[in-house]
């Protein structure tokens, strides 16, 4: 326990006049689920506090009350796939990668994101060796959203389904399995997620080795059939990278990776999580609904945002590329070719809610609880249960972000709210 006596004297903050997303207690024939409850949120020393315990054991009341104006308080959003933003490209090996990460970390606070996984696309080993050590796991705060670890998307992916990944840098681990992985990436200390194609030779060994190190293995950019995908999950894979994109389409006699959503061959007690880009562009709303209805508890909203995220309308030079931004769409300049997603996380949440017609609770969980569960962090992140980190967003009824809090501290506030 931190502090002991210090904790007892620390300030207690009570957020009132709000609706919070919290699990209901297991009641008679009730299901343990989350609902928007009219409850106050109590915070002390950066964690959510149990006010009943405070009342009866410590005999204390709050030191400060903050009126939330009837708003919704949801766990802070967690983005497990974001390639950069605001002109920053995480896959670029500069001398000061840290500043780029810090800039993105600070700017995504206004999108309601309180934790994220900077993502690197397929790159040569030199880039990984230079960049990875510069992106340590870091707690969030007024400086920006927390870094949970890096997501390495590639280079061990399918040639056919590489999408925008550079062909020259694709690799296989057929020769030395996990040793090839280490040789390519360097030390894996800061790595949280690895996306790979399970049809590559010796993938089972690699998946087992990564899973044994607590790294989340995701299937993506792959032509694997359902059987290969199921075997990968049995070896420890737990995620699918941007469902539908860069994989074989669903076929009724071989559903491919998409079939994992309803597979009966997964290890008992486990289900698959799958990322979805709900920007209104990368996935047809009908496809979004099919996935959501087939397996709502596994859906994880991701932005998969590119460096053009957050840049205004017009032309921008990003590394070797010329990109044209028009509203929420980014094109390769002068063409109609999409150049990656630039919809912020809160936009994705709103679009997801509107496209699927799901409950507000589920839409919020898809951006918070589910990614936390994917990464095994659900005791402290993605939830407003007692003892969890006090990372949360204040939302109005249409799910626009009014304010963002990390560890109980206000780290961003909308303009109107500041008056």
């Amino acid at each position, binding site marked *: 326990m931190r502090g002991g006596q210090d904790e007892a004297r620390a300030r207690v903050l009570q957020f009132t006049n709000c609706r919070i997303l919290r699990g209901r*207690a297991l009641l008679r*024939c009730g299901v343990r689920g989350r609902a928007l409850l009219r409850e106050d949120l109590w915070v002390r020393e950066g964690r959510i506090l149990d*006010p*009943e*315990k*405070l*009342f*009866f054991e410590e*005999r204390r*009341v709050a030191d400060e009350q903050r009126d939330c104006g009837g708003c919704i308080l949801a766990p802070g959003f967690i983005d497990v796939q974001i390639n950069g933003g605001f002109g920053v490209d995480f896959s670029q090996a500069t001398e000061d990668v840290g500043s780029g990460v810090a800039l993105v970390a600070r700017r995504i606070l206004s999108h309601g994101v309180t934790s994220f996984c900077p993502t690197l696309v397929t790159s040569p080993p030199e880039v990984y060796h230079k960049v990875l050590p510069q992106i340590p796991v870091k707690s969030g705060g007024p400086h920006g959203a927390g870094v949970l670890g890096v997501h390495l998307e590639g280079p061990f992916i399918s040639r056919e389904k590489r999408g925008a990944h550079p062909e020259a840098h694709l690799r296989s681990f057929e020769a030395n399995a996990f040793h090839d992985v280490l040789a390519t990436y360097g030390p894996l200390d800061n790595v949280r997620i690895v996306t790979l194609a399970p049809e590559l030779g010796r993938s089972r060994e690699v998946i087992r080795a990564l899973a044994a190190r607590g790294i989340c293995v995701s299937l993506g950019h792959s032509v694997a059939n359902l059987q290969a995908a199921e075997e990968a999950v049995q070896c420890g894979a737990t995620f699918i990278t941007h469902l539908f994109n860069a994989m074989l389409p669903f076929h009724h006699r071989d559903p491919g990776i998409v079939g994992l959503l309803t597979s009966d061959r997964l290890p008992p007690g486990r289900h698959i999580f799958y990322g979805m880009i709900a920007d209104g562009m990368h996935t047809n709303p009908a496809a979004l609904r099919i996935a959501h209805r087939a397996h709502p508890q596994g859906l994880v909203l991701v932005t998969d945002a590119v460096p053009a995220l957050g840049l205004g309308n017009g032309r921008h030079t990003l590394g070797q590329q010329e990109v044209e931004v028009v509203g929420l769409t980014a094109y390769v300049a002068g063409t109609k070719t999409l150049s990656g997603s630039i919809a912020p996380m809160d936009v994705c949440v709103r679009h997801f809610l509107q496209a699927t017609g799901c409950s507000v609770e589920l839409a919020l969980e898809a951006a918070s609880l589910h990614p936390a569960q994917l990464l095994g962090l659900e005791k402290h992140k993605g939830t407003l249960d007692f003892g969890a980190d006090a990372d949360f967003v204040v939302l109005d009824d249409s799910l626009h972000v009014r304010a963002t809090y990390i560890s109980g501290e206000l780290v961003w506030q909308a303009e109107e709210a500041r008056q």
Partner: protein
Amino acid sequence: MRLVILDNYDLASEWAAKYICNRIIQFKPGQDRYFTLGLPTGSTPLGCYKKLIEYHKNGDLSFKYVKTFNMDEYVGLPRNHPESYHSYMWNNFFKHIDIDPKNAHILDGNAADLQAECDAFEKKIKEAGGIDLFVGGIGPDGHIAFNEPGSSLVSRTRLKTLAMDTILANAKYFDGDLSKVPTMALTVGVGTVMDAREVMILITGAHKAFALYKAIEEGVNHMWTVSAFQQHPRTIFVCDEDATLELRVKTVKYFKDSKLF
């Protein structure tokens, strides 16, 4: 006694809440002068608590200088169990008002020495200057707090084994599973409540009608412990029409026509 009969549960709850509210305000509590309130749990007082919370939120009633003493608590149930009386009081009352946590007293059913806990509770009541108004309910077996049939009418706060009637009535809060219902509780005694300067008993619903009849139209009897209040100088019974179903028409007419209020 006074017998106040309202048309339905909501009106009875409101009448009781207004009475408590007025009592506190008229008392003019302050830093050296706390109003002491005895409090019940169960489904009957829920409407009354809601009204009191409403008066507080409207700015008409403060509990800053009020001390409360709850009647009872289960033995062996963890304090944060959803069905403990601590949870009940927190969720239905304390978390919505401005009472000082140090002034909210509930018996600890997990104390190492249960009798010592009961003795300490009696002492706290004494140190607070006694109870100004004790609010209670009535069980279907006519009990006040957990003073089950056969309890001494001069009893003090102590450990009691619950009667089958009570366990059956409580089963609905424990998934209908009798094995999950606590069988023992700490409770204020009949004598403890009789010591209060004023007592208000809330009784609503047809299922309580027979108990009300036994309590006020028959004699003082330890099998129907609420009957002890026939010997208290200031007791009010607040009920709805349904609770009067077993009373004599004559009794009901007297109190309805009475100019006492």
